[in-house]
């Protein structure tokens, strides 16, 4: 892979403020999101550093480049103290990834206090570019608005207009519910009912909501759960045979790992939105092959997003000629670019949302799966503007 972005002042030798560049990855390495980003996201960032050096010369930064990492176990307190420690003690210049919205919001706050960069990749909350936006935080890859604008709209238009939404009752789920509600009603659909499921769900049981779905008889059951919860919902959706009652399943956020957990037949036909699929085209596949060689798995969009974000961050330093955070922010703001992950990319200066095209994909039945991790078929592209929250709706007051 590599950046194909053009423009930007390509200054001479780069001056690092403290003689070295430290890229930090804070994410979940031991709990529910460990598979979809985790240690392999760290590998992705390391790959980006190596590739960047290969392209621009080993000594491009005139100093060492370190990649450091910490496990936040999805705990916002741990995330924030790790971030604090990284910025302060390890002189980290930037933090990447941070799945789990609460942890991401906590780190955004630290970044702002410490005046260092934070580029979010795996957290979905729109608050990062909304009320809690700040000068040093960027939101890459995807957010709940994108998912709703894709899946919510398409399913309402093509599958059914009446929805029953079930969502895990916490920040992420509520944000998803709100985004989907907006998207669906705007498209002319109706929401018959929407229920929050307890989070965490102690028993892994969702049968009450599915039974309720059976009696509400909506055309679409919108499941906003993620990870293990989602797997349970889908398992039980199939057990209660809701499909036979013509209640179609729509899923808010789907990762390949969720499909692996049940096999793709359990999901067959489900349409979902994703920023990226590893075999969407040659450029993506080239990266995916390289990644497979290194990690033995195909990259999720979180892995690819980490690579891409790290690359773009380093490129901004290269253009700025310094790693001074304010200078780097200036380089990033308003930047237009393309790479193997981001298509039609544009970093909005107003809220730091990195807008780009997304994909509409559909899970294939097991019989169509040709190689490992080849679960989905791309149905089409969603235009960047279409899946980006209008600036008027963000509520972000970006401090200058």
């Amino acid at each position, binding site marked *: 892979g590599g950046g194909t972005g053009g423009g930007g002042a390509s200054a001479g030798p780069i001056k690092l403020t403290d003689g070295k560049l430290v890229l930090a990855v804070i994410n979940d390495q031991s709990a529910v999101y460990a598979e979809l980003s985790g240690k392999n996201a760290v590998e992705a960032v390391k790959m980006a550093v190596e590739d960047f050096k290969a392209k621009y010369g080993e000594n491009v930064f005139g100093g060492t480049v370190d990649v450091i990492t910490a496990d936040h176990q999805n705990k916002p307190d741990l995330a924030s*103290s790790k971030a604090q420690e990284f910025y302060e003690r390890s002189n980290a210049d930037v933090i990447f990834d941070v799945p789990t919205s609460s942890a991401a919001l906590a780190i955004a706050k630290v970044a702002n206090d410490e005046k260092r960069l934070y580029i979010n990749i795996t957290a979905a909350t729109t608050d990062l570019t909304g009320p809690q936006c700040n000068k040093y935080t960027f939101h890459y890859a995807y957010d709940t608005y994108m998912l709703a604008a894709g899946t919510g709209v398409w399913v309402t238009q093509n599958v059914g207009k009446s929805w029953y939404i079930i969502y895990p009752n916490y920040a992420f789920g509520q944000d998803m519910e709100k985004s989907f509600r907006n998207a669906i009603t705007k498209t002319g659909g109706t929401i018959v009912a929407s229920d929050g499921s307890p989070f965490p769900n102690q028993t892994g049981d969702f049968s009450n909501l599915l039974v309720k779905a059976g009696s509400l008889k909506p055309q679409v059951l919108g499941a906003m759960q993620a990870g293990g919860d989602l797997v349970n919902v889908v398992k039980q959706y199939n057990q209660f045979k809701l499909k036979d009652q013509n209640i179609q399943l729509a899923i808010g956020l789907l990762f390949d790992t969720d499909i692996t957990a049940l096999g793709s037949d359990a999901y067959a036909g489900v349409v979902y939105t994703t920023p990226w699929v590893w075999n969407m085209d040659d450029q993506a596949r080239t990266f995916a092959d390289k990644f497979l060689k290194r990690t033995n798995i195909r990259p999720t969009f979180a892995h690819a997003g980490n690579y891409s974000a790290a690359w773009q961050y380093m490129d901004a330093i290269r253009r700025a000629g310094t790693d001074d955070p304010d200078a780097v922010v200036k380089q990033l703001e308003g930047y237009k670019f393309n790479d193997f992950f981001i298509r039609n990319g544009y970093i909005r200066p107003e809220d730091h949302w990195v807008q780009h095209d997304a994909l509409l994909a559909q899970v294939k039945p097991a019989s169509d799966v040709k190689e490992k991790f080849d679960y989905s078929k791309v149905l089409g592209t969603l235009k960047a503007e279409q899946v980006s929250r209008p600036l008027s709706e963000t509520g972000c007051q970006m401090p200058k």
Partner: protein
Amino acid sequence: MSGRYPRIAMVVGSAVVALVLPRVIYSVLALDILLWALFAMSVDLLVGYVGLLSFGHAAFWGGAAYVAALLARDLRLAFPLAALAGVLAAMALAVPVGYLSIRRRGIYFAMVTLAFAQMLFYLVNELRGVTGGENGVQGVPRLLWGVSVTRPGDFYYAALPLVLLGYLAVYRVTRSPFGHVLAAIRDNEARAQALGYPTPRYKLVAFVLSAGIAGLAGSLYAIGHGFASLDLLHWTTSGTVVLMVVLGGTGTLWGSLVGAAIVLFLRDQLSSVTEASDAVTGAILIAIVLGFRRGLWRSLAALPARAVRRLART
């Protein structure tokens, strides 16, 4: 302790250690150790001195943390006041919880407190309008009458007097006439009752005091880290603090400090050494239960005596 001088030396020594600690280890970790130790002492106050193993002390640590964090953020209270409010909230919560829990003892007490803490966990999660649910209470300022103590290193020193006050409180309670009655109740409750002590009242007071101490630690922890989260209320938090107490040795307040330091230090180090830090923690706990039931502090403290005895024999 034998004489007066060793005790004074110990107090002075620990004060010096407390003052220079942030120069030796990362100040956030240093404060964490002191606060978890205080938390562990509050649990030890019950386990070691009343014989009640609370497996739900996260409720008081976390409950107070939420109250303190919300007050500091929304009313912009200076942190000592916010912490005081946290303490009071924890004690208020401890009254009904304690009233119900002390009806059982031994393992039942552990399970009942555990369940109550989980109930609070879900309750706080559901009251997300106030508590922020999974997001927790974020962006808590560290205010000290107008001054904002932004740097963690500064906050360490700002909080130190309160922490030491907490230690002193625990020390005093265990070595008060009240503490003696607690020890008696631990050994033989019926007998204590026959001596005219209304034991339920004593147990309840001890429970509430312990909750207050845990609340102090929790409040300062939340303010120090700038927020309160659900994790502070989760049963694993209760488990961790019990682990610290048992590791250090029940009924020895110093043990709590040793236990807290070891667990936090290990956690800090392990996360970069091994993938399975929980498994290591679990293995340590198993080893302690099987091999060092008296706790590290007592085992260590007994070493010199044992060495002397061995020398004497040869």
